[in-house]
């Protein structure tokens, strides 16, 4: 299906944009704002607000029409390609197929100290009304907490014989999350033979879920992930898929 942005009429293509340019406010600055809007595809574009900040910057709000078409059929999303299981099904699958507890090691790596997200996935308390992985009887969860150096994580994963390593990254300034994730996956590749490498899962609100390849991890979870999704994925990736293989 082909769609366009909708302001107040089907197909009107209207969008709102704001940005700062490092120039003082004058007519030329507004022209520069329109030039940028034009390059973004706004035509016509209206500078509806311009405000100089300090001496050398101007903030702009621009409204306008874009003629870009969005083809929803060409959207590639990481669809959930596994069934969403209830806790008891997760437990049952682990018990009957793995015949031992499935070990999950979690951490916030690098200098990131935002544990609320990984805790939401791991701690009993959970999030959005769903209990976290600790609640699953057949999972053994080791939560290393915040600011864990990558070597420590690799060591703990080895010591705990982790089936899966769950890593959270929330700080994204200067692409910190990407650097840290790459460093982590490289370290695991180095430390483990491919067959024994634990499943690598990262999550955080600003990840692009399609970047698994680039980052060298098995799965990425974004904003609003729930523990059940993660548990179901683990069963799928560690049990169902192994069975198939």
């Amino acid at each position, binding site marked *: 299906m082909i769609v366009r942005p909708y302001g*107040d009429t*089907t197909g009107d293509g209207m969008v709102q944009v704001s940005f700062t340019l490092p120039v003082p406010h004058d007519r030329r600055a507004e022209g520069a704002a329109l030039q940028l809007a034009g390059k973004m595809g706004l035509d016509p574009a209206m500078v509806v607000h311009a405000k100089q900040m300090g001496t050398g910057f101007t903030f702009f709000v621009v*409204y306008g029409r874009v003629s870009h078409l969005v083809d929803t059929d060409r959207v590639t999303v990481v669809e959930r390609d596994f069934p969403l299981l209830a806790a008891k099904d997760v437990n049952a699958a682990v018990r009957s197929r793995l015949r031992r507890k499935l070990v999950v090691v979690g951490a916030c790596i690098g200098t990131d100290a935002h544990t609320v997200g990984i805790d939401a996935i791991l701690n009993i308390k959970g999030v959005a009304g769903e209990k976290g992985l600790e609640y699953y009887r057949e999972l053994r969860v080791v939560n290393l907490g915040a600011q864990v150096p990558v070597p420590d994580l690799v060591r703990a994963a080895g010591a705990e014989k982790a089936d899966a390593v769950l890593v959270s990254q929330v700080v994204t300034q200067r692409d910190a999350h990407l650097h840290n994730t790459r460093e982590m996956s490289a370290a695991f590749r180095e430390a483990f033979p491919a067959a024994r490498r634990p499943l690598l899962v990262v999550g955080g609100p600003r990840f692009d879920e399609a970047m698994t390849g680039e980052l060298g991890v098995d799965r990425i979870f974004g904003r609003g992930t729930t523990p059940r999704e993660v548990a179901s994925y683990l069963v799928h990736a560690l049990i169902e898929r192994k069975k198939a293989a």
Partner: protein
Amino acid sequence: MTAKLALDADQVARARELAAIAGAPVVELARSHTTVAVERATLRLAGLGGADPDGIPWVNRLVSAVVEQVGLEHGVSGPVFGALARGDSTDLVALAQRAAAGSVDFTVPAGKARTAAHRLGTRAVRDGLRTVDRRRAERERLVKRLGDPPQRPWIYLIVATGDIYEDIPQAQAAARAGADVIAVIRSTGQSLLDYVPEGATREGFAGTYATRENFRLMRAALDETSKELGRYVRLTNYASGLCMPEIAALAGLERLDMMLNDSMYGILFRDINPVRTFVDQRFSRQIHARAGIIINTGEDNYLTTADAVEAAHTVTVSQLLNEFFAHEAGLPDAQLGLGHAFEINPDVKDSFRLELAHALLARELFPDAPLKWMPPTKHMTGDVFRGNLLDGFFNLAGVLTGQSILLVGMMTEAVVTPWLSDRDIALQNVRYVLDSCGGLHEDFVPAPGGFVQKRAATVLAEAVTLLERITDEGLLSSIADGTFGIMKRPPDKGRGLDGVARRADDFWNPAVALLDGGAA
């Protein structure tokens, strides 16, 4: 709400008294004149609808034909129903068609012919009014069954795409998202049309034409949504303009629930002749009274052309005048959606406290009226982030001062007519304020003799002074002087004057008779 302003009761009484004195001559004017719009509205109530192939409504064709032949001053109903009574045509449409072709001779009937005409006309109009009554009963039933909004203020949202078929889904979406009242904004310019367009329309500018069919379509859609939501969603449109009486009639026939109807808006903001406006206004309000429609007055508009601090008292004066005219036309307090607005320049020191003082003054002057609280527009800019903030404080002022109907402000006010997402953001804003501060008025206690109380007292005193001047000069001269909204409108200028006539001694209009008489 308990009284928080400690207003001087004598001064309040004095203000009301002065408004009545100022308004009385204008009521007299209205009672002694008719207009083409009043006459057309009467024919509409009598059942005449539709338009000729050029889109000119049959009521216009018929009234023009009568006026050409016998003038307006007798009312057109005598000649029209006289012609029908004498068998010139079988019904009003046929008569209008023949009249348009120039093949009817109209006369003011006398004697027996008069009696027959009057009987026929009265019956026709009474039927129309009964439909209005049925619509009102229908509304009452639906409200009883589905319920009123659970909270005050009611949330009032506008749609304004220009296309009734875009408006409908947007209105339904707005209702689902929490709107209690939907207003369909009218196309620019419609208020200057001396006829009401016909049919479903898709070509308005910055608003959708007010037509009977558009009214019907939207009301039906909102009835559906009301059922879905278990809450009766009200529908608003605009009466003001050259067709005020007709639109009022159509609104009554199609069960609209509120109507923009101000005693002076057309004069001030559309340069419509003052006499025309006052005559039309009275008739239209009589119909609204009958239909149980809440009127929305337009004091907010003054503050878009005048300064909201300097002109605060003109709002109060206008509210008092609107109240007087409304009562006189039979509207009870419960149908008096007097308007006021949050339009003080936000850069003015203490602007929010001034707003609170003004809003509370209106609240305490008109404790039983469903006041309509209008959002900032004039000082909205293209800075949509700031705009949403300002709207939040507007919402807060509404909650703190117990306003009844909250017209939801849009962050894009200075940019575009509202987008779908603007409404959603705006509603989210309202909901946050209502839910998080719902009971905060409990803790809002203007300090005795403090800033808020003092400001309210000042505005009231200024209003009394102005009313004294108006009673001295006469309301029409005051309007001519630019007292309201800084617009100068002399009584002998402005649009639509040629459609006004002083009623002759034999003037007859069955709607006027029924509505003035009170019985039907």
